[in-house]
C-alpha cells in the first residue's frame, strides 16, 4: 500500500482534545488514516483502514466520517476527493459501503421531496378552495340585496362617469334603441327593473350596462349594425347583465375577497375607503367570461320571448369578428368577451332548445336613424 498523494482538510473527535473536536490535516499512509490537529500543540491520531467504520453525513450530507469500532475516535473530512482516495488506498474495500450510504441518503432526500410536493399541493388547494368559497358566499349575500341597491349604485356611477356627448332623447337613434328596449322590457327576468338607455357619441363599437338597468350604446354600434335585430341582440345581452345582477355581484366579490384578506390581516379600518375604490366604473362594466356567456343565453331567451330572431345576435358577433382585422377600434367591445366562434355556437345551440316559433321582423327604420348620426 502506498501513501496518499495529497492531504485533506478535515477534523477529529476525541476525548483528549479540548472541547472534544479539532481541525486536522488528514492523509492516508501505509494502510492508516492519519490526522494531525491544527491546534498548538499538534496531536496525531491514526485509525487503521481495516478498523474504519464509515458514515456519511454533516450539514452538507457529503461529509465522510471514519470511526474506530468503539466510537472513541472519529476522523472526518468534507473534501470531495477524500472518499475516492480512501477507497483507492484501501484497495476497493470501501466502495460498496460508500455506495450503500449514498443510496440511503438519496432515498431520504426523495422522501423529503415527496412530502414537500404533497404539502405544496395541499397548500395550493386550500388557497383555491378559500378563494372560491369567498366568491360563493359573496354571490349568495349579494342575491339577498334588494334591486334598489343596484339602481342606486348604477345611477351614481352613471352620473359620475365621463361617457362623452349624450344624444338628445328625441334623436331618431335614441328613439330607435328606446323602442327596442320597450319591446324587450316585458320579458326581462326582473319585471319591475327600470331600464334607461342612452346613446353616446363614440367611435368604438361598444355598449355597456350598469347595475340597475342603465345602458349606454355608442353611435358607432348603431352605424355598423346591419339590421335593427342586431341592435336588439346587443341590447338584450346588456339588459341581461342588469337583470342577472352581474355588476353588483362583481362588486360584492371584489369587496368580499379584499374584506376577507383584511379580516385575516386584522385591519378593518380601510374597508370603507376600499368600497369607493371598487365602485369604479371599470369594474362595473367588465364582466367575467362566465357572466358574458350567461348574458348571451339570457339575451337569447328574451329575444325569443319578444319574437325577435336571436340569429341576429350571432350575426352581429360574426360581423364584429370580420371587422376586427381592419378596425382596431372595434376591439373594445370584443376584448372582454368570449371567443366569437364559441359564442355563436352557444347561441345557436341554445336557440335549438327553444320551441320554434314564427319570428316577427322589427318594424323600425334603422336607415333613418343611421342617416341622422
Amino acid at each position, binding site marked *: 500500500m502506498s501513501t496518499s498523494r495529497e492531504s485533506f482538510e*478535515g*477534523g477529529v*473527535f476525541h476525548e483528549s482534545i479540548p*472541547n472534544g473536536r479539532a481541525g*486536522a490535516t488528514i492523509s492516508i499512509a501505509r494502510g492508516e488514516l492519519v490526522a494531525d490537529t*491544527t491546534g498548538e500543540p499538534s496531536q496525531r491520531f491514526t485509525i487503521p483502514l481495516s478498523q474504519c467504520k464509515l458514515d456519511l453525513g454533516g*450539514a452538507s450530507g457529503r461529509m465522510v466520517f471514519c470511526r474506530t469500532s468503539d466510537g472513541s475516535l472519529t476522523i472526518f473530512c*468534507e473534501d470531495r476527493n477524500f472518499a475516492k482516495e480512501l477507497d483507492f488506498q484501501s484497495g476497493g474495500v470501501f466502495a460498496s459501503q460508500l455506495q450503500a450510504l449514498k443510496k440511503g441518503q438519496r432515498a431520504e432526500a426523495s422522501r423529503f421531496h415527496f412530502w414537500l410536493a404533497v404539502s405544496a399541493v395541499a397548500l395550493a388547494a386550500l388557497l383555491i378552495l378559500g378563494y372560491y368559497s369567498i366568491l360563493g358566499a359573496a354571490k349568495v349575500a349579494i342575491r339577498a340585496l334588494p334591486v334598489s341597491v343596484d339602481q342606486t349604485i348604477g345611477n351614481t356611477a352613471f352620473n359620475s362617469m365621463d361617457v362623452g356627448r349624450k344624444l338628445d332623447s328625441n334623436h331618431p337613434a335614441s328613439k330607435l334603441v328606446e323602442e327596442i328596449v320597450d319591446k324587450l322590457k316585458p320579458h326581462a327576468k326582473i319585471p319591475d327593473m327600470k331600464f334607461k338607455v342612452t346613446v353616446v357619441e363614440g367611435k368604438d363599437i361598444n355598449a355597456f350596462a350598469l347595475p340597475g338597468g342603465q345602458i349606454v350604446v355608442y353611435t358607432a354600434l348603431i352605424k355598423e349594425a346591419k339590421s335593427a335585430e342586431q341592435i336588439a341582440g346587443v341590447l338584450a345581452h346588456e339588459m341581461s347583465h342588469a337583470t342577472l345582477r352581474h355588476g353588483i355581484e362583481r362588486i360584492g366579490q371584489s369587496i368580499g375577497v379584499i374584506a376577507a384578506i383584511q379580516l385575516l390581516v386584522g385591519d378593518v379600518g380601510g374597508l370603507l375607503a376600499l368600497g369607493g375604490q371598487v365602485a369604479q366604473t371599470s369594474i362595473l362594466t367588465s364582466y367575467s367570461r362566465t357572466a358574458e356567456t350567461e348574458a348571451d343565453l339570457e339575451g337569447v331567451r328574451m329575444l325569443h320571448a319578444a319574437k325577435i330572431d336571436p340569429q341576429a345576435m350571432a350575426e352581429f358577433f360574426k360581423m364584429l369578428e370580420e371587422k376586427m382585422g381592419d378596425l382596431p377600434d372595434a376591439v373594445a367591445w370584443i376584448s372582454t368577451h368570449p371567443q366569437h366562434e364559441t359564442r355563436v355556437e352557444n347561441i345557436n345551440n341554445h336557440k335549438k332548445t327553444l320551441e320554434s316559433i314564427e319570428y316577427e321582423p322589427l318594424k323600425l327604420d334603422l336607415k333613418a336613424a343611421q342617416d341622422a348620426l
Partner: protein
Amino acid sequence: MTSSLQYEIQLRPDFSLLKVSLEQGQKVYAEPSAMAAMSPNLKLKAGFKGGALKSLGRLMGGESMIVNTFSAENGPGEVLFAPGHLGDTQHYRLSGGALYLQRGAYMANSEGVEISGKWQGAKGFFSGEGLVLLKATGTGDVFFNSYGAILEVDVTGDYIVDTGYIVAFEDTLQYSVSVLPGLRGGGIKRLFFSGEGLVCRFSGQGKVWVQTRYVIPFLSWIDRFRPQKNK
C-alpha cells in the same frame, strides 16, 4: 494570522456584554451597531467584506451587508459589543470546518474567519427560519448571541430541536426539517393548533447551541397586555 482574541463575556446570561481586548495590530469584525464602548485609540472602519456575493449572503441571512472593522493600529485597546436584544453571547473557536448560525445570530469574529450565507432551499422555507443560514468558515474566533440563555448540547446520534430555538450548530451534524414525530399520527390539525410543529432533527456527532427563549412566543404572550385599539 490565526492568533486568538483575548475576550471576556460579562453579565451573563441575560444582559451579556462581550469585551474584546486587542493587542497591537489585531482586528475584530462585528455587525454594525453592536459596539457599545471602545478605547479611543482603536480605529473603526465600516465596509463590505468578502465581496458582493458574500455580503449578499449575509444580507439574506438576516445580517447587514456592512461589517465594521475595529483595528488596534495605535497600541492595544478594548471594545465592548452588545447584542441587539437581551440574551447570552457565546464564543466558538473555529479550526477548519464550519459553524452554521441561525438568522441574525452573528455578532463578531476575528481575522481568519469568513461569514457567508448558505442557501438551504426548501428546508429553509419550511422551517420558517429563512432561506439562508449564516456559515462561518476558516480558523479563528466567532461570537454569536441568542435570545435568552444558551445551552450547549453535545449531540451523538439523534437530537430534535424546535426550529425557533436553534442558535448555531457544527458542520459535522446532519440536519433535516420535519414534523414533530408525535404529531405525525395526529394529523394536520395538531400541526396547526398545537403550536409545536416543525423541528430540526440533527444526527451525527457535534454541538448544537439552543436558546432558552424564542421571540415569537414571547411576542404573543406580551400581545395580550397591549391596550386595545378603539374601534
